[in-house]
């Protein structure tokens, strides 16, 4: 049988041991499904293997390789895995990932409102935190709630870690960050995760950056990083929002474009309002209208998942190599009990 077929084959019922109690995992279930079905309040968000909120550690029993997809080697070596991807082949003994292994304490240095719905949060980690601009961290509140946020800062340019949080009206983490979080408070960070960052070595490669909403955060980090590395090829950044107030870094990006000949900023408004200097329409549509052939380009796509998926396909069909397309869909929490797909 092919390895793909083997991974997808139904597994017999397995047992999990977690916090001294045994739970059954049905053949159709992931570890996360089983724990939720038994009423446990374990952290999770996207249930698609993207956000990494649901990470656990197996102290006994082997986890399938695909359940460790995207994790750092140190975490894999310790048996950490994503419970939403894990259909166990063995019985497993589980623990929550150890704090010292996975989390770093960080102090809030500053919280600023950049628009009526977007806050910029600067964080100071208690220990050195290695990352690339454009990766993301999992931010954990003291009550255990975890969500992922992308890094807009650049290690050699910025003293703090910077994230941009868009307030959702009923969103637990985002409205807490936006309405309540104060300088001096602490949170825990895991990560960094993700492979969407600037790679030096091809300074003349054209870069196409497309994001909507706070999908701008990783993109501005990548743009700053590339420019600081002396990138000489064109860098085109398309930022899309519905309303003008959503273009929350309009002034900074306009200035950046004035300072660097190879950096261009394309603000796009998909709503009815028009603003001077802004393109009418969706960011990805404008980007692909301007760049019909993407051979040799490196493409970064961040934000609203349907935009990211559609743009990934469009970029590929326009000639970009899949290895050169980095897609970070900002998956929200999956609320359905049984996720689609």
């Amino acid at each position: 049988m092919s390895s793909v077929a083997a991974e997808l084959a139904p597994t017999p019922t397995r047992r999990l041991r977690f916090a001294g109690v045994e739970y059954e995992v049905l053949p159709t279930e992931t570890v996360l499904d089983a724990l939720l079905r038994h009423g446990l309040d374990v952290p999770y968000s996207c249930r698609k293997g993207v956000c990494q909120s649901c990470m656990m550690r197996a102290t006994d029993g082997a986890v399938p390789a695909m359940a460790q997809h995207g994790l750092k080697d140190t975490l894999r070596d310790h048996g950490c895995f994503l419970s939403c991807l894990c259909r166990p082949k063995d019985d497993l003994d589980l623990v929550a990932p150890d704090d010292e292994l996975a989390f770093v304490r960080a102090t809030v240095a500053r919280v600023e409102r950049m628009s009526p719905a977007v806050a910029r949060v600067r964080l100071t980690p208690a220990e050195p935190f290695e990352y690339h601009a454009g990766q993301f961290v999992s931010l954990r509140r003291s009550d255990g709630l975890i969500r992922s946020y992308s890094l807009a800062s650049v290690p050699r340019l910025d003293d703090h870690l910077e994230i941009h949080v868009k307030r959702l009206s009923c969103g637990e983490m985002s409205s807490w960050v936006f309405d309540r979080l104060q300088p001096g408070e602490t949170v825990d960070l895991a990560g960094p995760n993700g492979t969407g960052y600037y790679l030096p070595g091809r300074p003349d490669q054209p870069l196409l950056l497309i994001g909507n909403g706070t999908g701008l955060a990783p993109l501005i980090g990548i743009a700053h990083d590339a420019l600081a590395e002396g990138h000489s090829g064109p860098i085109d950044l398309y930022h899309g929002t519905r309303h003008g107030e959503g273009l929350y870094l309009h002034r900074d990006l306009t200035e950046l474009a004035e300072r660097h000949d190879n950096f261009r900023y394309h603000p796009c408004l998909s709503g009815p309002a028009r603003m001077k200097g802004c393109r009418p329409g969706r960011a990805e549509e404008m980007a692909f209208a301007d760049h019909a052939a993407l051979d040799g380009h490196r493409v970064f796509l961040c934000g609203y998942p349907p935009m990211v998926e559609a743009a990934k396909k469009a970029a590929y069909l326009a000639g970009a190599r899949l290895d050169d397309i980095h897609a970070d869909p900002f998956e929200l929490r999956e609320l359905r009990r049984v996720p689609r797909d």
Partner: protein
Amino acid sequence: MSGSLYERIGGEPAVDAAVDLFYRKVLSDPSISHFFDTTDMDAQRNKQKAFLTMVFGGPNAYDGKDLRAAHAGLVSRGLNETHFGAVAGHLQATLQELGVAEDLTAEVMGIAASTQDDVLNR
């Protein structure tokens, strides 16, 4: 010439060169793209790599039964000879674009044709 078809055609680098060309053609063809349209494009491309390795005569883990299983769901969604012919056409066009010699192309197309019954679950 000596060596297996896979070696003569250029081995894994040849598969890597062909896979993007081939997958792009398939995704751009409205008569078959719906079979390949998935949110996990990376996984789908790896399957196209498995397909190309197989028809290039390379080392692969598939037998007729696996091919049947891999396409059974597609057959129940209507996969038929016409679709098979379209895929074969894109394969041939890919080989031509890469400048693969005619005799090698003929061998590849022969292997592809030999799988038709298994792919269509006949």
